[in-house]
Every structure is written in structure tokens, then in C-alpha cells.
């Protein structure tokens, strides 16, 4: 296809900003009839993408990365904040202006099975964007489609075939051809290879790199597979629960992660090398619900490097973990659904499975040597739980064992000369930097 591809690098960013995102928030389900608690999918995000670069967006499922990508190309409307595209705030666009702008930014979707209408021929699929924007005359459109087929490594005679007749990798090529039809500057790639087998995945990644070099495209590459991101991206943004936790040059982040979350995430990737003996931080539990994110730092409920109150600096690590789990259990319980009978029992002040606190305390603290001071606070919390006052119980624990991490959302700290930012309280001068801090679990 493109023999003249330069081998020198992935791509060279020009240094000129193409997309700038400021304090972007995208919430779902606002103003629903009975439920006014929205899903905070994207919750205040800032970054910029330079012309010609590939910005990776990584994170676990439900962290808001896909929503962010969709908001950038206006498939979702932002709740607040702005998306500047060449200086124009596209969240404000509508009608003809919006339609016109859409030529500049396209998307490649995750699932090659579902992203192509299988009642249309490949030619019709790739041609549709051209038709919508009345691109030149029909004859030239058809020629353009054939050219695109060639560009993505398919044959011109595939024009009259249907998506059914292609394999997953080929279908993804069709999706890429459609995205390129209008010669966009900016392409959002939403997990373009996650549904493909490894051997096919490599083909698509190579293609994407070639296309970027050939057409000077700017990519936002959304993925959960970190090795893919490391391979293809210039810079990476790591998302967790609607927030960007760390953002910076790819190699810098992969070699020396600053943020505790990035650190844990990277250490969790299994390496295809049985001899590697990297130390792993296994995170406890699961991410909280984006409907009800924690009050302070989004990562506070799982963070292995969470800041402790001064007086508990030297508590036994197992005990500290037990306390954290205990808080997590109470948090989890407040989210759990209560049956009618349970609610009735609570009203009458009777025992329910939620008020049974003895069992869980035995489970967590049974084998541990609990100092009297800690014990006293646990007793107070347990008393509240028995009286079905979950909120109070949680408050007691938060006041006693919580820290700045539970109270305030951290600022974005610049953590390297290249302008890398990290979203963590530990970058404040009074605390130990995350990368100098040994996680409690490792001690």
C-alpha cells in the first residue's frame, strides 16, 4: 500500500495544539424522573492534543475513557467545560456549523461486528460520509472509495461485497476507511484492536501507524491494553473514575510512573516473560460506582499509598489494611439494596444482616493485635452500625482514620521537566513522593 512510509518514528508532533479540553464534565441521567443521581462518567478533565501526535487514553472499564472520546467528537454532549478544536469550542456548535466541523473529526469503533451496517455493501458504507457532505460528484466519490480501499489494504473489487464476507480484521479496515473518507485531521480510535486476535491486531496497529504518517493524522487512542498503548502512543493519559490521574510522555510514564494508580496499573500487566520477577502491587477491591464517587481523591478507596494520619504512621500494616477493608465494607453496605423486610426491620430497630457487625469484625480483626485506641473507635463505629446508623459509623471512621486523601480532590501537579502531570496529594511538599514511598502492602 504505502511504500514510501518513513521508518524513522511513530510520528512527529508539530507542537501546535489541535484539541484542547478544559474542565470537561459529562454526566448521564440528569433530570431522570425519580433518580437525580447522575453517572459522573467524565468528571473534570483537562488536556491538550498536539497536531500529528497520538494521545493514548487508558483505564479500566467504566473509567469514562470511551465517554470522553465520544464527547470529543460530539457524540455525547458535555455537561460543562469546553472542547477547543483549533480554538473553536465545539460543544457550542450546532446545525450546519456542527455538521461542517464533523468532517474534521472521525471515530473508529471498537466492535467490527457492530460498527458496519451489514445490509449495505462495503462501497456504500465507505461512501456514506462523502454523500452526507456532498463531496464532489458521485463519480469522484466512487473513485475515492476505491482509493480508500486500497489505502487500508483491501481490494477494489471488495466494493460490492457485504461486511458478512469479511473477517474481523478486514472489517476493522473497512471502518478505518470510512473514518478516513472525509480526510479528517483528528481520529478517535475507540479500542480499535481489542476485539481482534493478537496476530490480526498487529496488522491493524501497523496500518494505523502508516496512515498517520501518510496523512498527518492526530489520534486519540483509547485502550485498556497497556502494551498496545505503549507501542503506538506518544503521550498517555491514565484515567480512573472520570479523572485523569496521570498524563505525560509514554515512555516516561511506563518506565517511571509517578501516580500511585498508574504504578499499580502497570504492575498488574502480566508480562509475556516467565522469567520476569517484577514486584506487583495487587489492588484491593473494585472501583467505586461513578454515581457515587468518593469525596476526596477518586482513588482513595483502593490506593496502596494513601496518606495516613500522623498518629497512625506506624500502625501494623495488616491492621491498617483491615481498617481500610472495614471502611470499604461499610461503604459497600450503604450501596447494597435492602429488601422491604430489612427496611421495615431497621425502622423497628431490629437485627438485620446489615446490623450484624460482630461477624465481620471477627473476620477482619480476629487474628490481629488491635491497640486499645483503635479498638475504641471501632467500637464506636460498630455501635452505630448496630443502631442502623451507617452514615454515622462511616463518619466516625473517616474522622479518625481518614486524611487529606479522603477530604480533598488532589490538584494536578507537574512532576517532571517534560510537563508530566499527576493527580495525587503525595506530590505536595509535606508528604513522601509516591515513587519514593513503599506501599504498605509491600512492607
Amino acid at each position, binding site marked *: 500500500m504505502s511504500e514510501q512510509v518513513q521508518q524513522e518514528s511513530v510520528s512527529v508532533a508539530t507542537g501546535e495544539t489541535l484539541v484542547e479540553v478544559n474542565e470537561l464534565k459529562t454526566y448521564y441521567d440528569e433530570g431522570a*424522573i*425519580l*433518580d437525580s443521581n447522575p453517572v459522573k462518567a467524565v468528571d473534570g478533565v483537562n488536556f491538550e492534543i498536539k497536531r500529528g501526535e497520538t494521545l493514548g487514553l487508558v483505564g479500566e472499564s467504566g473509567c469514562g475513557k470511551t465517554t470522553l472520546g465520544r464527547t470529543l467528537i460530539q457524540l455525547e454532549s458535555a455537561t460543562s467545560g469546553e472542547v477547543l478544536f483549533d480554538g473553536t469550542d465545539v460543544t457550542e456548535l450546532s446545525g450546519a456549523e456542527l455538521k461542517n466541523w464533523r468532517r474534521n473529526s472521525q471515530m473508529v469503533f471498537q466492535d467490527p461486528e457492530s460498527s458496519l451496517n451489514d445490509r449495505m455493501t462495503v462501497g456504500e458504507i465507505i461512501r456514506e460520509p462523502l454523500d452526507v457532505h456532498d463531496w464532489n460528484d458521485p463519480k469522484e466519490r466512487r473513485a475515492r472509495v476505491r482509493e480508500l480501499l486500497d489505502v487500508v489494504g483491501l481490494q477494489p473489487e471488495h466494493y460490492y461485497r457485504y461486511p458478512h464476507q469479511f473477517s474481523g480484521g478486514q472489517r476493522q479496515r473497512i471502518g478505518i476507511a470510512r473514518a478516513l473518507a472525509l480526510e479528517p485531521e483528528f481520529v478517535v480510535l475507540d479500542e480499535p484492536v481489542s476485539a481482534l486476535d493478537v496476530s490480526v491486531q498487529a496488522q491493524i496497529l501497523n496500518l494505523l501507524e502508516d496512515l498517520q504518517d501518510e496523512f498527518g493524522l492526530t489520534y486519540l487512542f483509547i485502550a485498556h491494553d497497556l502494551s498496545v498503548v505503549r507501542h503506538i502512543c506518544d503521550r498517555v493519559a491514565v484515567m480512573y473514575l472520570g479523572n485523569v490521574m496521570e498524563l505525560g510522555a509514554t515512555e516516561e510514564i511506563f518506565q517511571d510512573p509517578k501516580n500511585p494508580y498508574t504504578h499499580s496499573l502497570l504492575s498488574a500487566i502480566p508480562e509475556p516473560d516467565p522469567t520476569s520477577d517484577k514486584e506487583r502491587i495487587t489492588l484491593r477491591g473494585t472501583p467505586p*460506582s461513578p*454515581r*457515587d464517587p468518593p469525596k476526596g481523591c477518586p482513588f482513595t478507596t483502593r490506593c496502596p499509598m494513601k496518606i495516613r494520619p500522623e498518629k497512625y504512621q506506624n500502625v501494623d500494616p495488616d491492621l491498617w489494611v483491615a481498617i481500610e477493608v472495614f471502611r470499604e465494607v461499610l461503604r459497600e453496605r450503604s450501596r447494597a*439494596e435492602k429488601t422491604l423486610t430489612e427496611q421495615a426491620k431497621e425502622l423497628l430497630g431490629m437485627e438485620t444482616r446489615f446490623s450484624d457487625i460482630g461477624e465481620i469484625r471477627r473476620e477482619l480483626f480476629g487474628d490481629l493485635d488491635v491497640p486499645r485506641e483503635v479498638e475504641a473507635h471501632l467500637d464506636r463505629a460498630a455501635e452505630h452500625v448496630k443502631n442502623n446508623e451507617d452514615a454515622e459509623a462511616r463518619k466516625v471512621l473517616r474522622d479518625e482514620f481518614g486524611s487529606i486523601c479522603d477530604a480533598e480532590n488532589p490538584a494536578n501537579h507537574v512532576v517532571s521537566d517534560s510537563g508530566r502531570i499527576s493527580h495525587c496529594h503525595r506530590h505536595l511538599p509535606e508528604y513522601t513522593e509516591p515513587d519514593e514511598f513503599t506501599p504498605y502492602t509491600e512492607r
Partner: protein
Amino acid sequence: MSRWRYFAKRVLLSVPVLVFGASITFVVIRAGPLDPVSAILGPQGDPQAYNTIKRQLGLNQPLWQQYVDYMVNLFTLNLGQSWVQQPDTSVYSLVLTYAPRTIWLGFWSVLIALFIGIPLGFYAGLNPNTLSDYTASFGGIVWRAMPNFWLAVILMSVLSQSEKFFFGFDWQSWAYATNVTGPPPLDNLTSFDGFMRALKKIAPAALVLGSASMGNEMRIGRTAVLETVNSNFIETAKAKGVPPRSLVWKHIFRNALIPLVPIITGEAFILIGGSVLVETVFDISGIGYLFFQAVKNGDMPLVGSLMFIFILLVVLINIVQDFLYTIIDPRVGYEGGA
């Protein structure tokens, strides 16, 4: 959102349905050419009397005011009196006379559908592509295709001369002497004899009325079972060594019941409409018959009130359906907060 909040939301949603349904009825009976005054007076009423009656009935008021009165009355359950059908009788007392027969009929036809249709469907679904499956499936399709009134006529003529068809077995004198047609005796249901007598009387009509639902439930039941059998958790259950019997009764049965809930309740309100034909053929003067007469005679308040009762019933059945869902399926209303 919890299951019960979801349920509450559904209940709340039934209020506009009730209002809207009643309004449609109002538009149809009041804005249309229905003329109760002529019906009361007969064809030769003089204009003077016509206007007097019209005023008495409140039909000279502006339409919007009639509408407000109508809605307020309905929603305060002030159902008024019949004008034409049985003048000056309250709708309540008419309903109390006619409704029990229909309820008795509907109750048994639902039971027949439930206890024959669903087991047959489940059986067919558990033994797919066997002779018994084919027989049951095909039978279900044909059974569903039979028009109620036709089935009713056939059944009636067969039963009234049953000794000719069943080698001397005489339905009418069997167990309790009854006619095939006529309203069921409902005054003595507490005694065993009275109960059986009423049951025997209603059985043919209930069989006819339940027939279509029976076919439906059978087919949906079969599909539901087949779908459940192919789901992953059945494979997991097999992988932990669950024997076939408890696989069926524990794992398949309850899951297959979930898609059947709307079908079962859906049938219930088809019965409300369908009963009129069966009631006519079997001469059961039930509520369907009453409605039919009221429509023919232009008895506005009776039609409106009966319609409102029907709508109320359907809405109630819908609520029951959501309630059943909430009970059987713990996932209802859950959107995966975690």
C-alpha cells in the same frame, strides 16, 4: 435504583395511562354521534321533551365542562346510574349483578391456560425435536388459530348431543344435571356441591375462552425453556454435577417463567374483551354482555363507567405483572451501579 423504587415508578406511570384511557373513551362516546336522548324517548319523541331530557342529563353544557364532570366523577369512583339499559339503577349494582359470572368464567379460563398450556410448553421445550414436541407445538398453533366463537358453537353442539359422539356419555346429566348454556349458579359456592355445579356449568365456556391463551403460553413457554437451556449458567450448573431433575426444576423453571409473566397477564386482559362472544354463545349474562347491550342502546354513563372499570382492571393487572416481575426476577430495576 432498587427493585421497589422501580416498582413504584411503574405504579406511578399507570396514572397517566388511566387518565388518557378514560379521555379516549370520553371523546368516543360524547363527541361522536351517540344519542342517548333519542334512545330514551324512542323514535317519536317531541322536541320539547327532547330538550328537557337533554338538560336533565347535563348534555347541553359545554363539552369541556362535561369532560371535567366526567373525569371527576370517574376518579372519585362516582360511577353514576344507567340511563337507558336499566334506568335509574346504579352502575355499581349492575356491575355487582353481572360481574361475578364473568369473573368466574375468566378465573377458570386463566387457570386452564396456565395449567395446561405452560406445562405442555415446558415439556415440549425440554424434549425439543421429538415426536411429542412436534405434536404439542403443532397442536398449539392450530389451537390458537381457532376462532373463539366457532369453537364455542362446535363445543356447544357437541356437548348438547354428547351421547351421540361419546358412546352414550351424556354431558348434561353427568355428575350434576346442567344445561350447556345459561349463567352459572354462583349463589352457593361455599358448599362443595354448589362449587362443583358452578364449575361444571362454566367449564365449556372457560375452555373456549382459555384456548387462545393456552396456545400462546405453550409456544412462548417452549421458546423460553429452549433459551434458558442454552444459557451459560446451565452449563456451569452441569459442570458442578447438578443432576437433570434439579437442573430442570431449580435452574430452568424459574428463569423460563420470567418471559411468561407478560404473556400470562397479557392474556388476562384479552379475556376481558373476548368474554363477550363466549358469553353470548353460552348465554352467560356477564359483564361483556352488559357492555354490548349498553353500547347498542347508547347508554352513555353505563358505557363510560364500564369502560373505566375495564381500564382500571387492565392497569391493575399491569401492576400485578410488575409485582410478579419484581418477585421472580431479582435483577428488575437494577442497572449495575458497581
